[in-house]
């Protein structure tokens, strides 16, 4: 038997991997993929609790998170394309108008 702790700790490790990627990488598309990784690790937590509690609401949440992630992917990649068209770069160090 696999206790739920294993799934929760795996999810935490994958989430932190995504956080490290967002903080260290400079390529906008890779940052974007790291956000997908973080969303997925949260999905794993939802499904694990859903299975261990015998309640389907967690899987409903996963369904809606996937819809939000698909919307985010479409809009985010459109922003990346618009950015590349205007500045010829996707390095976020070169795109700092909104940065303090």
């Amino acid at each position: 038997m696999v206790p739920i702790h294993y799934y929760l700790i795996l999810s935490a490790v994958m989430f932190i991997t995504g956080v490290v990627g967002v903080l260290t990488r400079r390529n906008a598309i890779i940052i974007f993929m790291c956000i997908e990784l973080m969303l997925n690790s949260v999905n794993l937590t939802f499904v694990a609790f859903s299975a261990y509690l015998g309640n389907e609401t967690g899987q409903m949440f996963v369904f809606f998170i996937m819809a939000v992630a698909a919307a985010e992917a479409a809009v985010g990649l459109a922003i990346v394309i618009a950015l590349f068209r205007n500045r010829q770069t996707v390095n976020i160090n070169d795109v700092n108008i909104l940065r303090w």
Partner: protein
Amino acid sequence: MSSELIVFLILAAVGVLSGILMITRPNPVNSALFLILNFMALAGLYITLHAQFVAIIQILVYAGAIMVLVLFVIMLLNLEDEEPLREQMSKRHYGSLLVALLALVLIVQVIGWNSGGTLETMREQSPHALRIGTVEHIGSVLFTEHVYPFELTSILLLAAIVGAIVMAKKRFP
């Protein structure tokens, strides 16, 4: 070790390793391929949790649709490699790594601190788990209890479609 634990450990190792490889490869295409491997491992983990519907959707929507879109954009923009991570590591990067590690320790401590509490009762999956992951059950719950959020999702997707077209099209003169 039970066979379930072995399957879990293999899938978990694939998931963590592909995640780490994803954030360390300089080439964006390699990163995207490792992310797809990570999604495959997650789909396997969903199967071990008896969530068949979520596992199939994970492959179809994430590994299929979203990652194809990401790969398409990477190849469209024809990006070259980033400079290797080692050369661009600055004090700020080490700081962010430290913060991330502290956050990981915090999460693991919270999970361990609960031992003896509610989590301790979740040693094995609920007997209902086999029933609730099926397409039939998910569909019936989705279209009865959660039908309003489902309909609102269609508005969200419409807004995303319009937003993506407005963002990516050429400016009017």
